[in-house]
């Protein structure tokens, strides 16, 4: 079920990337696409046991104290941590470019640029 929501977010982000003409909205679409991908990757690691018990978050605590317990897959979460940080980097760089473009053309809309 969660995976359908993630795929919907990916489609929404792609649609926004293809149709929007405003740079800020394009960057927002890119972020929505990225969030969809991250949710999708995390959902790959979710575990439901044979008796219907739900997987525990992968942290050993004083109550969840053995690795023989049913933990969810920690590897997708670690990879998504990397992906989130890189997403922050690309978003910040894109916004810096957008700021420079606005300083030069006075607009965020790509159709109205290049007239002066």
């Amino acid at each position: 079920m969660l995976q359908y929501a993630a795929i919907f977010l990916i489609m929404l982000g792609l649609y926004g990337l293809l149709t929007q003409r405003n740079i800020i909205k394009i960057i927002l679409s890119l972020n929505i696409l990225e969030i969809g991908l991250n949710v999708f990757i995390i959902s790959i690691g979710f575990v439901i046991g044979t008796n219907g018990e739900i997987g525990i978050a992968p942290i050993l605590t004083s109550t969840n104290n053995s690795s023989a317990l049913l933990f969810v897959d920690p590897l997708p979460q670690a990879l998504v941590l990397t992906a989130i940080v890189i997403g922050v980097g690309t978003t910040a760089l894109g916004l810096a470019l957008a700021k420079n473009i606005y300083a030069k053309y006075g607009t965020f809309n790509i159709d109205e640029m290049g007239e002066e």
Partner: protein
Amino acid sequence: MKNFLALILTLGLGALILVSLANNAAFPAFGDVDTTDRVSDGYINRDTDGTVDNTVSYGSTDAESGPANIVTAIVADYRSFDTLGEVTVLFVSSLGIALLLGSTKQKRLELDFHPNFMLRVGSKALFGIILMTGIYVTIHGHLTPGGGFPGGTMIASSMLLLYLADDTFRARIKGFKVLESVAGTAYVLIGFAGLFLMGTYLQNFLPTGTIGALLSAGIIPIVYVLIGLKVGSEISGVIDNFLTEEAV
């Protein structure tokens, strides 16, 4: 017309994803995953070399990798080289922002309002709380959810609060640059220490200790605190670049 084409393309992509994932042997249904046939089983049991079936519990000593948080064990121990690359990506992007927006003579971007007394004092009080939470999350990265990246971002968000609440405030950006360089260099040097002492780059050369103790997991808390400092100072630098403009 163009929007319609985009809609068709998007629906086509969605259908392609759904069709290729349905009844795919390599892609189990949601929740049907068996972690024992994945690589992650080794990460959870701390038994990646497959010599002993080492089942770890809370409080056990001298495990292959020490953090109680298994995600931290992957991010900062098993795949630490990957994290070094990730930190480099963040560094390069902050460098790019400094190149795009930075200049030698800078002044603060003018805000539309001037803060009154309450806002100035309240933001200072909140700044301390947010900064402390960020430091706590960074230091406990190997025990609880969080770690260097979220903790560093919290530290940077406390700087953002000061920037937004006071229209004359500017951080000492040179100090951030020094801190960032020192933290990044120390991370690389710890990697070389692992290479010379143990034979592999970024290998844990300190005793792993008891799982769940604050002073455990060898170099992992050190590395994560360094990552937290580096991320915090980098993002604070990015915030400063966005909220300053060229002085005329």
